[in-house]
């Protein structure tokens, strides 16, 4: 296995490289591991490793009406964002993949603009726009703003699925009498379904973890989980946030591992 790219350099000669790489890997993983362990601490003090264990911070998270409401808002927004972004993004990716339209460069630039434009500018701009059309502090406003941010991820994921799919199959189906839609849903979609699911998962997590735009446009009854966390962190270090953080870490792993695997599988 290792012979495929083995150079005549022994592992011993590379020990310094492994040591350095290992340290950087430790730097990358340590914060998450520490937070997960500390979330089970029984003490209000920040001690590592904790002296006593308990689930009190999870109880404090699930027992608090404010945290629960914020979580429900975030879940609602993320689900609706995933649905909207997947529908719009898949349709857009399909159209781009056909390559018959003019100005594909400009279309791509516009669709992926939210990846490149600094998110703080999107936040301020959205807040400014919403103030005029009364969408601040509404679920609809959050879903629209998050959909725009998730759209490029869905488009890129589905597009990469379509690129590895032979579009002639759909043409054959249509030449045999299937309409455009039934050809897509019966022939193409089953074969790119993993890309579409990956895109939906990316969209969900993009919305669920979004902070900056939500800071500007959510509030009151529609305060998202991340906005509440941000405000809580400005005040003090509440260990409840360690329990919430652990839930977020687990959620990311559960949702994005299949997305990563599906993405690669196609």
């Amino acid at each position, binding site marked *: 296995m290792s012979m495929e790219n083995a150079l005549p350099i022994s592992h011993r000669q590379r020990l310094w490289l492994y040591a350095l790489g290992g340290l950087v890997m430790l730097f*990358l993983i340590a914060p998450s591991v520490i*937070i997960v362990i500390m979330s089970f601490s029984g003490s209000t003090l920040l001690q590592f490793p904790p002296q006593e264990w308990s689930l009190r911070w999870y109880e404090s998270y699930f027992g608090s009406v404010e945290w629960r409401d914020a979580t429900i808002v975030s879940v609602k927004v993320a689900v609706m964002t995933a649905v909207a972004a997947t529908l719009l993004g898949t349709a857009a990716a399909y*159209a781009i993949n056909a390559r018959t339209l003019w100005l594909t460069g400009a279309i791509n630039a516009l669709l992926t603009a939210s990846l490149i434009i600094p998110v*703080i*500018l999107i936040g301020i701009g959205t807040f400014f726009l919403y103030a005029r059309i009364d969408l601040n502090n509404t679920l609809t406003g959050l879903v629209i703003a998050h959909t725009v941010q998730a759209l490029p991820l869905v488009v890129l994921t589905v597009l990469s699925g379509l690129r590895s799919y032979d579009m*002639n199959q759909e043409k054959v189906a249509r030449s045999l009498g299937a309409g455009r839609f039934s050809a897509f849903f019966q022939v193409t979609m089953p074969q790119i379904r993993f890309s579409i699911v990956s895109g939906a998962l990316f969209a969900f997590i993009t919305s669920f973890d979004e*902070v900056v735009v939500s800071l500007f446009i959510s509030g009151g009854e529609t305060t998202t989980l991340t906005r509440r966390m941000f405000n809580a962190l400005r005040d003090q270090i509440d260990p409840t946030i360690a329990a919430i953080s652990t839930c977020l870490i687990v959620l990311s792993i559960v949702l994005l591992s299949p997305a990563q695997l599906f993405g690669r599988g196609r």
Partner: protein
Amino acid sequence: MSIGSASLDPACGPDRGLNADALRADARRESRGLLALLSPGLLLVFAVIIVPIGWLFWLSLFDETGQLSAANYARFFERASYIKTFVTTFKVAFVVTGACVLFGYPLAYMLSQLPRRAASICLIFVILPFWTSVLVRTYAWLVILQRKGLVNSWLIDLGVISQPLPLANNFAGVVIGMTHIMLPFLVLPLYASMKTIDVDCLRAGMNLGASPAATFRQIFFPLSLPGLASGVVIVFVLCLGFFVTPALMGGGKVIMWAMRMEQTTSLYSNWGAGAALGVVLLAVTLALLGFFQWLLGARATGVWSQR
């Protein structure tokens, strides 16, 4: 793309000539159909991103009295507090980018040299934090670095220091937290580009008598530069507009560009000034990305999809 011509399988071969005209007319109708598929997404992006930014740009051209003026931009050069913000922002961006190169290059190099299975296991260490919410990671660093945090209590227990070190709520805290967040943005594209370097080139160098160090310096390193450059530009550009970590770990002392925008608009409701800051930030971002894309060709854009 004309649907009736070429590359279709023989199944519809005999009918091809007859169908061609009808299909060509169909193709035009399809173009309209495709545009209809595309337009909801495009309209949404246009309405939520392009329109407000254009509006803000328009606002930035007027002063408080509604007169057309460059006052919103002139104040960047006149007021010391703005100049300080820009200096801080670029200082943070340079230090964080430098730290990412320093830590990220050896890691990416190691990943690229490991056997496939070991590399994919080690890659988890890069991808897992990449997936984790920025807020969660910033919280983790606050817990680790603050006055009564983990690092300080360990060092005091060990007797290394008697007074807690100021690690959070200052420049150092912002740099450590941001380096952690930016590192995957450098390592992932760099690793991807290092994987494409042909091992035979390296083997040839060594066969011709070059030492491992010389092979690295003269062959591997130059070939890895395009990947490094795209990683560097992504990290630098993201640093310039970064908000969450400096806002939470700067302790109110490290005011970066994005925080300044937030304060100007939310706190002081000075939309003209805030908009001008945003316009300049966008211009700098696009200029840097454009410059690197021109320098490196298509590689730079391909890397954006890594996000």
